[in-house]
């Protein structure tokens, strides 16, 4: 059991390290490891766990709780989640604090100018990916357009709008 807990922790740790530019890219590898290789969850359970993590607030990679719990109960959930979030959070603290001390140097300013379009381009690619999976007919297209207008006008906070759209989807059977 201890060996398998260590394996679970290590798997989520290295998966967190290859998670660059958002969590979506790592999902196929995560599935391969936890379903096909180590059999911690079945394919059906993984799909349900992923859906649950999409339904709940917070990062999608919290799916680590679902897999860890299935494999080794509360301890498994805690270790998998700590492995997924803690080391990279510490790395981010160290790098952002260090970066803050360098920020005013000309090369650091140039770096920030050079990296900003990368971040925005990735965000725009995220819009494309989300639109391909989220907009598939005239009803969802209209809902997306309506949401854009309401958000642009600032008439509703984002979460209220998304909840309202979920309610509309449920009533309309989208």
């Amino acid at each position, binding site marked *: 059991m201890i060996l398998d807990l260590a394996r679970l922790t290590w798997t989520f740790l290295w998966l*967190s390290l290859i*998670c*660059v*530019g958002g969590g979506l*890219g790592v999902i196929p590898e995560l599935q391969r490891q936890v379903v096909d290789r180590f059999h911690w969850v079945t394919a059906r359970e993984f799909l*349900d766990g992923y*859906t*649950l993590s*999409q*339904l709940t*607030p*917070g*990062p*999608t990679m*919290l799916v680590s709780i*679902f897999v860890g*719990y299935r494999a080794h109960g509360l301890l498994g959930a805690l270790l998998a989640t700590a492995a997924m979030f803690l080391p*990279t*959070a510490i790395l*981010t*603290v160290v790098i*952002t*604090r260090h970066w803050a001390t360098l920020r005013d140097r*000309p*090369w650091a300013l*140039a770096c920030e*100018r*050079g*990296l*900003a*379009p*990368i971040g*925005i*381009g*990735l965000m*725009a*690619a*995220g*819009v*494309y990916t*989300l639109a391909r999976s*989220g907009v598939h007919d005239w009803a*969802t297209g209209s*809902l*997306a357009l309506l*949401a*854009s207008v*309401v*958000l642009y006008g*600032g008439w509703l*906070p*984002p*979460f209220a709008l*998304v909840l309202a*759209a*979920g309610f*509309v*989807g*449920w009533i309309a059977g*989208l």
Partner: protein
Amino acid sequence: MTGRVRLSRIVKVFGWTGLTSLGGGRSAYFYDAVVMRRPWLKSHEFIQDLTLSQLLPGPSFANLGVALGVRLAGWRGGAWGVLALIVPGALILLGLTVLYFHVGFAPNATSAMHGMGAAVVGLVFVTTARMIRASIRGGRALLVGAAIFVLVGPLHVNTGLAVLLMVPLSLWLHRPRSGS
């Protein structure tokens, strides 16, 4: 580093952001919380942290929480911020997981998720448009932004590979020049 915002405020706002960030494109909720609704950060500062969180390994939403927290209140801001961001959703998901495995609760909310997914597309679209308007200055930035969009979006190039290709090019294009 001096704190711009009190820790208790960070915990409250990040906790609420974590609790209300539904669907995909979760960084858009943060933009709304710390740039649009509160004068905590300028748009370009948010984009710096967003970019860093995307380039560093790890779940980018959590990385973003850390980076924004560090900027607003030092390492304590980063630590408390990311905890406040993650813990509410983690507890909810743990509760649902227990129900799933012990009571047989199954997620069957496809229609609601389709509606939420469509609204999130609108949310992320508006947020990205605001960021582009606030931060993309000049042809070089536009070129790099468009290239990374096309590579990762329509062409489905692996994100890591696209970043590896485009970061050196963008840094070279934006290198400090004499007299600038």
